[in-house]
Every structure is written in C-alpha cells, then in structure tokens.
C-alpha cells in the first residue's frame, strides 16, 4: 500500500432521493471526502448487481449504493424491489468471495444532506482501514 493511497469509491444513487440529498449537501456546503464518484440512475431499481462486480473489476475499493427510504420511492415500489434484490446480491457476493464489507447499502432522502456527507466520510474512513481491494481488479487484468 503506497503512502498516499486513497480509496476509490463508486456510488450508485437514485435521481429522486439520494442524488437530491447529495445536491443538498452541496448547497449546504457540508464538506466530505473527495473519494466518491457518483453514477446516477433514475431509481435504485435500475441498479444492476453486475454494476457492483464491474466497479470492483475497474479498480473500485468500495461500492456505495443509496436510494430512497423504502416506501418513499418516487416510483413507489422500485426500491422495495431494490432492497430485496440487494439482500440477495449481498449474499451472492459473499458466496463468490467478495469482501462484502466493501459494499455498503444506505437509504438517504432528498432532505438528508448531512446524512449523505457523513455517510461518505464514514465509508471512506472504514475503507481506508481495510486498504486497497485488488482481488477483482487483478481478475480484470488477467482477462485483458
């Protein structure tokens, strides 16, 4: 691990709640670690479990997934689906040997700017402790 290594955290968020929550963190000038890169989807239902695997292949050290609180969904049921799906996904990743400490699911609403900034900081801190994640990264190299 190099001295100034910084974790790469890929974040998938839904447009209506968490993306708006992140915007609110911005307008409120809540500072947070710059390690995350946000990818926007319309609803957490759109997030494909394979996105997570792919993110690890491309060198992510952690993946953060955040949508509306169950029941608050703009698309009413979409994130119930997501919740079920991700519970299963986490189990699957676990069996595959993925370090599931590096996959974080959180609900964050449009009004929770402060929660979003704290979330990012917490995840960044915990991944810093875990160190770089190369298992899947190297898989990707081999394929190439």
């Amino acid at each position, binding site marked *: 691990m190099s001295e100034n290594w910084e974790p790469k955290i890929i974040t998938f968020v839904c447009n209506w709640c968490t993306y708006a929550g992140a915007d609110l963190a911005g307008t409120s000038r809540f*500072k947070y670690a*710059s390690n995350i*890169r946000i990818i926007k989807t319309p609803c957490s239902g*759109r*997030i494909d479990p394979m996105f997570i695997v792919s993110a690890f292949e491309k060198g992510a050290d952690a993946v953060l997934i955040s949508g509306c609180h169950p029941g608050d969904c703009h698309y009413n049921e979409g994130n119930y*689906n*997501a919740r079920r799906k991700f519970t299963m996904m986490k189990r699957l990743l676990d069996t595959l040997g993925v370090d599931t400490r590096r996959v974080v699911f959180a609900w964050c609403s449009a009004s929770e700017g402060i929660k979003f900034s704290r979330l990012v900081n917490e995840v960044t801190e915990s991944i810093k402790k875990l160190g770089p994640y190369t298992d899947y990264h190297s898989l990707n190299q081999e394929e190439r």
Partner: protein
Amino acid sequence: MARIGVFVCWCGSNIAETVEVSKVAEVSKSIPGVVYSVDYKYMCSDPGQELVKNAIKEYKLTGVVVASCSPRMHEKTFRKAALEAGLNPYMLEMANIREQCSWVHNNMDEGTQKSIDLVRMMVEKVKRNKPLDDISIPVTKKAMVIGGGVTGIQAALDIASGGIPVVLVEKESSIGGKMSALDETFPTLDCSQCILTPKMVEVAQHPLVQIISYAEIEKLEGFVGNFKATIRKKARYVDVDACTGCGTCWQKCPVKVDSEFEQGLGKRKAIFIPFPQAIPSRPRIDAENCLKLTKDRCGICEKVCPTKAIHYDDKDEFMEVEVGAIVVATGYKIMPVSAFPEYGGGQYPDVVTSLQFERMVCASGPTLGDLKRPSDGKLPETVVFVKCVGSRDPEHYHSYCSKICCMYVAKQTMLYRHKVHHGNCYVFYIDVRSNGKNYEEFVRRAQEQEGAQYIRGRVSSIYKDGDDMVVEGADTLTNSQIKVKCDLVVLATAMEAPDGIKQLAQKLGIGYDQHGFLTEAHPKLRPVETATAGIFLAGCALSPRDIPDSVSEGSAAAAKVLGLLSKDTLDKEGVVAIVNELTCVGCQNCIRVCPYNAIELKDICNRQGELQRQVAHVNPGLCTGCGTCTPSCPSRSIELQGFRDTELYAEINALAEL
C-alpha cells in the same frame, strides 16, 4: 465518429474557487472523442448558451457535456439550447462539478481531479447515448367516475364544470351513497338530505354528466388517456326511459322485505326506489324477492304500469365507454352488529349500529323521526354509545382508527338529547379524536352543554336483564368496574372497504392495502392518484373520512382529471423502456417487477398469422422510466432509454482510467 464538446462553467467563483476550471477544460481535450472544450464564467447565461449553440453548429458536435451545477438545476436549460442548435437534447449530459465538487471539497487539487473524472464519465456516457424522441399520446377527452356517493358526485360535477363529459357509474339504483341515509351532520348539524339532494339534482341535470345507475365495471382495457371500460348494466326489469317514476307499481306490489337503505329497520317492496329522493327516480325489481320472477305469479306491476315500462325478461346489458381518466370513489360500508356477538349484536334487537341510529332519529326514517327502540317501540330513556367497535383492535378486528366515529357519536348524543330532553346518554370511549375545524368545540358542546356523559374504557359485555340492556365495562379513569342499565345500545362499528372492492381494484389494475382500502401513489405528495397513470381516488375508498374531507378529495381528483385532459395529447420524455423483440425469451420477469404494470406480452406471428412466440412489450404511455425491468431481464432484452447498460457501464469503465 463521436464529436463531443465539453463546456466547463465557473459559476462565477462558486466553482472556480475550488476547481481549476481551465485545467478541466484543457485535460478534457485529451479524452478520446472530445473535439472542443472551453471554460466560461456563466454557462447558463444567454452568452453562455450561445457559446454552446455556436460550438454545436461550428464543430458539428454529436454530443455535449456541460460541467457545471446539478442537472436538477439546468439540464432542461441546456437541453433546450442543444435542441435549438439542432442537436437531440438527450445527447447532452451534465457533469455536476458544483454540488458534487466545489461546494463539498476544499482542496483545489482534489476538486480539480474529481471534476476531470466526472467529465470523463459523462463524455464516455454521452458518446454512447442514443437520440431519443419525446412521446406524445392522444387522449380521449371524457372521464368516468365510479361510485355516486357525495365524493363521486362532487368529482363528476367539477369535471363537468370544466367542460369534460363524465360518465358516473353507480352500483346501486340511486346515487347518493351513505350521506343520503344520515340525519343531521357534524359539525354544523345541517340536515344531510337538505344539502345532498340539491347536489344530486345538479349532477343529474348537468348536460355533460351521464349517470349509469345499477351498474358495475365489467372490464377495463387501455391506459392513461385511452381507457376502454365495459360497464355491466344489471337487469332492472324497468325501462328507465319509459318509466315516469309515478310510483303506482311500488304502491301496489304485495311483497314486503327489509329495506337496505333503512338498515333493516323498515320495509320496502320488491319493486322499489331505495329512498324518496332517489336519482334516477326509477325503480328496479329485486329479482330475489319478486313473485313474478321467482314463482311466475303476481305480475301486478306490469298490469298497473301506465307506461308499460316493466319487462320481466330484462337481461344484463353491456356498454362500452372510452374515457381518458377515471376517478374511483367507491366509499365504505360499516360492520354489521352481527359481527359482534360478544356485544349481543344480532341477538338483541336493541343493540344497533350507528347507521341504524341515524335512520331511527331521521325525520324521513322508518318511524318518521319518532325515536323508538326496535324491540318494543319504547322511547329509550337511557342510551349507551360504544365507540371503537371493531376499530383500533388489531387482535380481534381492525388495527386502524375509523377516524370519524368520535365526531358522529358526539353528534348522535346531541341528536338524541334534542329528541329526548330528559334522556341520559353515556359514551364509552378510548380516546376522543376531534382534530378538525370546529370539531373540538363540537365535542365539548356535547359533553358540557348537551349532557353526554363520557366514560373512558372498553366495554366487556352487553346483555339483557328483563326489559333493560346492561353494558358492563371498565372506567379506566376511576379504575372501577362499571355497569350501566339502558334501553338502547348504539355500536359505532368500524368503517370497512365495501364489498367487491378487491375485484374492482384488480379489474382496474390499482392497488389496495390489507384492509381493502385503495392505495394512493404517494401518501403525502400524490394522495388522490394511484400508481396507474390516469386513475385517481377520492373519499372513503381510501380510508374512513368525513364529508368535508371526502368532498375536498372529490374536487382534488377532478382537478387532476381536468389537468390531464386539458391537452389534446399527453407528452412525456422519451426515457422509457424498450424491448428487443429478437432476443426476448418471454420469461415475463420484467412484467413481474414493473411497478406500473407497463409491460405486457405481445404475440409474434408468422406471415400466415400463426403464433410463433410471445415477447414483452412496454406501453410507453404507462412506463415511468424507473428502469426496474432492465436488471431483471436474463437475456438483456429490455433497456431503459437514456440509462441503457452500455451507457452506465461506460461510466463505470471510465473510472478504470482514473
């Protein structure tokens, strides 16, 4: 080949302070596909937009990335500018370097590096974007209201006053709903019929309203703006056009049965109108009790009818209507006393429901307003009201609060005392919930000025002792057991979803909760919409509520309908799912997960018209673009436009180079 332009905004100093904008623009040039990049002080200003437009034309850009504020702020602005310059608006994406960079990071290097990353991700995405067309769907400018209670009447009137024709479908032979059976109404004690009848007449006479009574929905096809409903007009055995409502038939009919409208306290004939103010004022024959229809005897009504309107061979008829929007206002029913044997319900005639009590005190009721108890006609000197019967009792009955019983019980104690000045009345209650305008004052008036005695506690049993009824319960305020002798017991039984509501909901494709009440799209922000576009809800169909709330919702639903049908077409963004019919295996996974029922199976036939296979098909009118279907597809055949796999993986892959 992609030709992408990158436009980096300073947002004054908002971005420029923590992001080296010129560097972002400079580095962007090295991203494959980028042919032009520039930074500018205010990209959203007119000159900023001109810059974008001119570059699109000059450099023949195929895609644009604007790195500035959140797309929630200005995506529309820039997409409009792109369109004006001849570029499909969906070929423009935004990198959010203000809310996600400059405003949340202090360090210039970090902010700059992250901005470059975000630009790279969006460049990779926009390179793979496909131009999309907005969708425009024609609408039928006509509405249907299901349920002709006060809620449905209000909705129909408001829609019709907005110039949109309405079909009002009512299950019973008259409109009016429960309100037509009430005596006086809280919190003002105005007579229910006096305020409802004019509305019933108004809706019946409105040139744009067509009332179809004694009818139910058989089938619903189509989608928002384009529904086709099949209505079953149940056999009435009376030609409503020929009939003048003279009443000769029901005066002469020899059969007497319990009247549903009178809650079993009065009688009606086998040919009848439910109540004198019924609209339409045309009778129907009750086929189960008519002598002609059951035993081929009698036939008196046919003989006496001056207009030959009686037809014993009448059959159910079906009619189809095309409508653009639907309001469901099917109301409620109350639990019968027989559901409560522990309270002597069904066993003792002097244990009645609150709705029966309304009829017992109503001037148009079976006793013409003379309060008599059902068993022996005696004037009740003491009455006990029991609240929350079947409500707030998750172990035995319903977990929910029926919301309005607190109010109507207070009202009924007053109605009672206005009839029996020296009478005693007791109310067993758990809580008094009176949180409406002038409601608390109303309950206080019942307690403080009109002599109602409130006892806090649950009733344990109700039984008969000689001529008297005895109510036993606990007074939880004094912590004592209490026994009240009385002449009449009124149970404020729970309001429930009406019969047949689940079947109706399934036909309409709308949701209902575990109690059978219909579900709104969002409990706070979309309280009168369903998850199915174009179908709205109002009144007690959603859950128990009083007349003011019901009427407000009737109007709210009408406003939604008018908004929807005010345009000739329904326009929406092109962000909808599309199925690749060549690779779809018809597994129906997507159909199961779509929260909007927007996907159905479609037949694929060969040239001879023989069915080859079935594939999924998305109705763009119903699809909301949530994308839940896309990850569910095992053959990767259903893709949400604007968020296709290739587009999102491009964003992920862009990170490999970071």
